[in-house]
């Protein structure tokens, strides 16, 4: 792990943005024994609109709690993309729900972009609501910041027991999709123009 990694997860309220950030933070700090600090936005926007959570991963205790220029941005809605993409660090990683986000005005040379049809995958698995866990698996495979086992354990610990299997399946699907994508490399800008936005 690098000494500092700042991650922002964003989407609209109800997509499970916060849980996604909790899983990442828990995997890094509780399971792997490093340090993680998670913060989230509160208020009406947390129940709709652009909801976001931030996680800072580090080998030493985290001091400053907020993320201003994330190394990794995970977005699951167009609104969240428009709001947070400009803050992404040059050379950072952008992970998108490719059916819900249309990329505009980003320089692909500086940003590595990876897309996943997380909602469709979640629906195939059986429940649309696990798209956040699909995204989390995808995040794990693409970034390699946290081990697959640690993330998987954190998913297990963070969801109600009756949904455990479903969520692990979602996680594995996202992770495997990510591994395949990693081999084919980041997307080019031209690849996004054809994407339809299903918001």
């Amino acid at each position: 792990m690098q000494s500092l990694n700042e991650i922002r997860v964003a989407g609209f309220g109800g997509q499970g943005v916060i849980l996604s950030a909790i899983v990442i933070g828990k995997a890094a700090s509780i399971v792997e024994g490093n340090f993680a600090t998670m913060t989230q936005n509160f208020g009406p926007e947390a129940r709709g609109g652009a909801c976001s959570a931030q996680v800072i991963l580090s080998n030493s205790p985290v001091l400053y709690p907020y993320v201003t220029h994330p190394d990794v941005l995970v977005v699951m809605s167009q609104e969240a993309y428009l709001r947070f993409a400009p803050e992404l660090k040059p050379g950072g990683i952008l992970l998108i729900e490719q059916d819900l986000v249309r990329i505009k005005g980003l320089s692909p040379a500086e940003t590595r972009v990876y897309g996943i049809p997380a909602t469709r995958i979640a629906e195939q698995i059986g429940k649309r609501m696990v798209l956040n866990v699909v995204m989390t698996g995808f995040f794990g495979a693409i970034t390699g910041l946290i081990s697959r086992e640690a993330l998987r354990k954190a998913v297990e610990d963070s969801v109600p027991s009756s949904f455990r299997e479903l969520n692990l399946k979602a996680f594995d699907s996202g992770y495997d999709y990510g591994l395949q994508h990693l081999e084919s490399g980041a997307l080019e800008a031209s690849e996004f123009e054809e994407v339809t936005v299903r918001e």
Partner: protein
Amino acid sequence: MSSVAIPQNPVEPFLRSERMPHIWCPGCGIGTTVNCFTRALLDSKADLTKLAIVSGIGCTGRVAGYTNLDSFHTTHGRAIPFATGLKLANPELNVVVYSGDGDLFAIGGNHLIHAARRNVNLKVICVNNLIYAMTGGQTAPTTPGDVITSTAPYGTYDPAFNLPYLVEAAGAVYVARWTTFHVRQLAKSMAEMFQKKGFGFIEVLSPCPTLYQRRNKMGDGLDAMKFYKQVSKIKHGAPTSEVALSKSGEIVVGKFVDRERPEYIGTMNTYLEQQLGERYVEPHTLSDDGGCSGGELEVISCNR
């Protein structure tokens, strides 16, 4: 010389005689209500060790300080939430709230209606002298219209609360009203209320000769007794909507409400036990060594 045995006043053991004389004025009715209270305790053979009394601020608020019980003189208006905490933490206590109309219905009005709504097992005795007496005779939410007070020098025009009506609507299971003229009925009513489970309420009309009566040329304490005798009408079961008070009109007294509703602590325990099954652990107080015990280890999901 033979000594003459002075018979002990039967209410003496209930009072902190070292604190006498009390602060109440000649002709004030609060002492009369305390007398009735002690008689009610005698009659109901209550375990005094398990009886606690909580007062707010005001002339009636001083009652707690004169009773030889676990007694709490709290802040203005907050006797009921204090009593709620006391009762919930230690359900074997019988908790009586003894306070005045201003304390319970103005500054403390919100707490009163919510305790009645929950049906917490508290017994509220409200001495209503129709005025703020401790601070010098200002208008209270119980002061009838056309009455001179120190803050209504030309007379009152604020509408007053009808206490039994309000308390019944909020959920009390026992509601009665008496005056300090009706000492037997009052003591009996108190004893009856103590037997009842849930939020009970007795309003006691009580004279304030120093401030209310003097300013309104209504005579002294004795005149008040005559007035109560003259205008009171016992109407048990009267609809509380019809028992509002006025300056010189009829005073309807009696037991207005006596009904059953699930009491708060019992409901809480039963409901939680039902929901949680074996995971439910009933509350308890600290042991003599200051520690707490009980409670199952339960591993819960760490966050939301």
